[in-house]
């Protein structure tokens, strides 16, 4: 590639928009970042579902092994995190679908929704594990 010095100079001096770290953290921004992080976590969480299905299809011993690991305190902690990430991403996704229709884009409504997503994810996780401890008892 032949580039003139002028081109290089333009590239060096071109003003860039500032990146994330110069902005004050606000609820909608936090939700956006968390939506991506939970999505990434769920991506690898799918390994657990595949592993559990394979164990159930292989043998009683494999299944017992999987159940034991998932039922250990480490397993339960991972599953609580998994369920929270799923609820968070699910509620965040519903928020995005609502925005896609053009509603709730106004600043204060969007902030309110962001807080509701965060609160909702914790409430649903608590409810789920309440039900689980009730069923398992």
């Amino acid at each position: 590639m032949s580039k003139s010095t002028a081109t290089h100079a333009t590239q060096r001096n071109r003003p860039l928009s500032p990146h994330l770290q110069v902005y004050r953290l606000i609820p909608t921004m936090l939700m956006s970042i968390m939506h991506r992080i939970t999505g990434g976590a769920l991506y690898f969480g799918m390994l657990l579902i595949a592993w559990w299905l394979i164990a159930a299809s292989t043998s009683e011993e494999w299944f017992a092994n999987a159940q034991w690991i998932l039922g250990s305190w480490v397993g339960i902690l991972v599953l609580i995190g998994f369920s929270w990430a799923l609820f968070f991403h699910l509620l965040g996704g519903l928020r995005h679908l609502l925005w896609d229709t053009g509603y709730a884009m106004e600043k204060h409504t969007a902030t309110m929704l962001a807080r509701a997503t965060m609160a909702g994810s914790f409430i649903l996780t608590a409810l789920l594990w309440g039900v689980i401890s009730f069923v398992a008892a």
Partner: protein
Amino acid sequence: MAQMQTPLRKVRGLGSAKDGTAHFWRVRVTSVALVPLSLFAIGLVVSLIDAGYAETRAVLAQPIVALLLGLFVVISLDHMRSGMEEIIQDYVHGELAKVVLLMLNLFFIIILGAASIFALLKIAFGG
């Protein structure tokens, strides 16, 4: 002659793969389908908390359960593929690393899908 072109002229026509709308639409369609399917999957897991090996397999072998769980897995994987693709394209700028990761993403999705569906079918057909 190359240096006679403005930077804008050089990149014009190179920027878009022209399939952004299809990607966007596919993420939305799969996300809508995953709302009821995820709730079903959560409910199924909760209902199987106390079930042993035989009972779990009997439930998973029911046609409706096998079908819905299969749909949950396949549609989740499609949604995951789109999402991870977007993350890679956003953060990985080296051409080689980007291509390798995009390939690994597809391999991960297809291997996970093949293994899960095989397991589900094996249980459903009583293997």
